[in-house]
């Protein structure tokens, strides 16, 4: 066990996976010499050499497209897109190609590819660096989507993603890179994709979240506890595959639900969670499920972002509402 920040856990896992499997190659913009703009790939170039750790041209579509080819050649690509918002530049290669090669080739070609990308608010970035667009990918069958909320999960999920036979988007919360610190088990750690985690127990209500919003949910649960409210916090960890069983159980146990997401409300993944709950546990609901989302506006500039990203206050207010 060692206490690590999330970015340290990611870096350590990349080191371990590259050492474990020499088919793993890491590439993207500024990942080699510079070690990544957040240092997530620090030290990889020195240790594994310029063939396996590669600075690419500034071409997101070609990064993803070439990852597909590399995978068919027998490599295990771990591509970095510098910010999730720039996956838009590669959307056609991700949604139209990466997600579908196994399908299009009727099972012949597989793409065990990880696409790492940071996203999320709270650190006053320029445009398109903070956007939470996970729902847009969740509507693209063929992708898996991991969104860790702790350093330990970052390790376990990243290892699982790299070893997974399918393409996995591995989305890293910018705000968590250094702000999230926790105990990370040493040695091999694999957190299976598709298993939610109960971060905090309680059965007055359940707050469902993923990525950095788990931290916000957890803090809200601490606030609520002061009022004598026992809020369970469920971290989805991966939104595809979705741990429907865990959601159902939590809703059945608690009857009241708040879903927190960093994305805009309309067509965000929280809507899918609500719809899933309606499918799976409607009769357990004692109140309407509350969504706490960002507003239906593009991610704003620095001076306004505190008013945009869901915060503890809004989650607490939503919790009170569903308990009314």
């Amino acid at each position: 066990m060692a206490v690590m920040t999330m970015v340290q856990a990611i870096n350590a896992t990349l080191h371990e996976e590259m050492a474990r499997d020499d088919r793993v190659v890491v590439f993207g913009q500024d990942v080699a010499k510079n070690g990544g703009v957040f240092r997530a790939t620090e030290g990889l170039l020195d240790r594994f050499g310029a063939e396996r750790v590669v600075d690419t041209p500034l071409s997101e579509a070609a990064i993803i497209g070439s990852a597909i080819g590399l995978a068919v050649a027998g490599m295990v690509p771990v591509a970095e897109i510098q910010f999730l918002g720039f996956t838009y530049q590669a959307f056609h290669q991700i949604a139209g190609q990466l997600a579908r090669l196994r399908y299009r080739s009727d099972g012949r070609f597989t793409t065990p590819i990880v696409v790492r990308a940071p996203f999320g608010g709270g650190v006053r970035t320029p445009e398109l660096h903070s956007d939470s667009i996970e729902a847009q990918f969740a509507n693209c069958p063929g992708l898996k989507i991991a969104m860790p909320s702790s350093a330990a999960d970052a390790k376990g999920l990243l290892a699982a993603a790299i070893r997974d036979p399918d393409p996995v988007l591995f989305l890293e919360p910018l705000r968590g890179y250094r702000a999230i610190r926790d105990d990370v088990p040493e040695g091999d750690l694999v957190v299976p994709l598709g298993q939610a985690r109960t971060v905090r127990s309680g059965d007055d209500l359940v707050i469902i979240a993923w990525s950095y919003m788990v931290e916000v949910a957890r803090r809200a649960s601490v606030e609520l506890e002061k009022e004598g409210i026992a809020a369970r916090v469920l971290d989805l960890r991966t939104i595809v595959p979705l741990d429907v069983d865990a959601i159902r159980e939590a809703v059945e146990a608690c009857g009241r639900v708040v879903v927190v997401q960093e994305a805009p409300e309309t067509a965000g993944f929280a809507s899918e969670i609500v719809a899933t709950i309606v499918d799976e546990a409607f009769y357990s609901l004692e109140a309407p499920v509350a969504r706490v989302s960002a507003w239906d506006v593009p991610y704003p500039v620095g001076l306004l972002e505190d008013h945009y990203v869901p915060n503890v206050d809004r989650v607490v207010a939503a919790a009170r509402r569903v308990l009314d």
Partner: protein
Amino acid sequence: MNVTVTDQLAQRSGLGPAELQDLLRRMIAARLFSSRCFSLQRQGRMGTMAPIDGAEALIVGAAAALDPATDWVLPQYREMHGLLRFGEEVLTTTVKYLRGDPAGGHFPAPIRIWPPQIALAAQIPQAVGLAWGMKLRREEGVVLVFFGDGATSEGDFYEGCNFAGVLDAPVIFLCNNNAWAISTPVRLQTRARSFAAKAEAFGFPGESVDGRDVLAVRDAVARARARAIAGGGPTLIEARSYRLGPHTTADDPGRYVPAAEIERERQRDPIDLFRRELEEAGLWNASFEEETRRDADARFDRALQAAEAATVRPDAFFDHVYDRPTARMERQRRELLEALSRDEIAAGGAGEPGGDRSGRPDRNRPE
């Protein structure tokens, strides 16, 4: 056999009579296979398809320069009927593809051909990655990727080629400039001097070659291949051809192709040109022709039979989305199978699923 002409041909191509005849056979067969599919589409037995007419020389010529044991091909969507050098099953798979059978995307190993690509130029960066991977794995071989003149206007063409240049990847970019992208003529596609000239943007060689001349294409690809294998990196080859048929079964070129142009182009049909060469050299005659066609027809019949005999489970699309379907997909599969059994009960036996399908596939003329 006209020795002088044969010698000239041999000198020009480095090929003996049997090899030259083989090229022509493949070109004739390619067009025949494609035409058979065109007819089947008209009969409602196949979906939209893009006829090969006019591209046979460049496809067969390129394939002839490759080693099917080591080299990969990434097609666009117009080339498959000309790629049987990679294995006879290319035809069956292609027929399946055009029928709308999911197995049609699966050229069986060891055939080194990727599924046809509909999203223009998307295969180009993928080809680059494959070549990069082969280089990393020290595998001898190259990747050849086909695309049209229209596809060169996509960002993927440019990003892929530029990437390949930086990586020195062993990849051959083969642009079939057939003068049209559906109704869009090359002059509305780009102002570049030629498609070969676009290689200047990437810093590797670009070559424009007569795509109606199977030997010229074979030669250009062979040289590019040798260079790539020697570590010399990518080449962009523009093969100048002409689309002699409609864009696809859904297209009506009468709306936009000048009649005189197509008339003139028919005079330079690549198959006719090469046939005349071989005839002059005494390497071709009516009985060769007839035998080639009979043989191709028989092969097509076999492929069609095999393809049409293949059964397609209604829930097949759940199989290869992921390594294993998610729990939610398994629930969906059950829902589908229940719906189907409702239909069967309603129909009093094995029936079509409920729905509102009607008419021939092309009635809405998707391109």
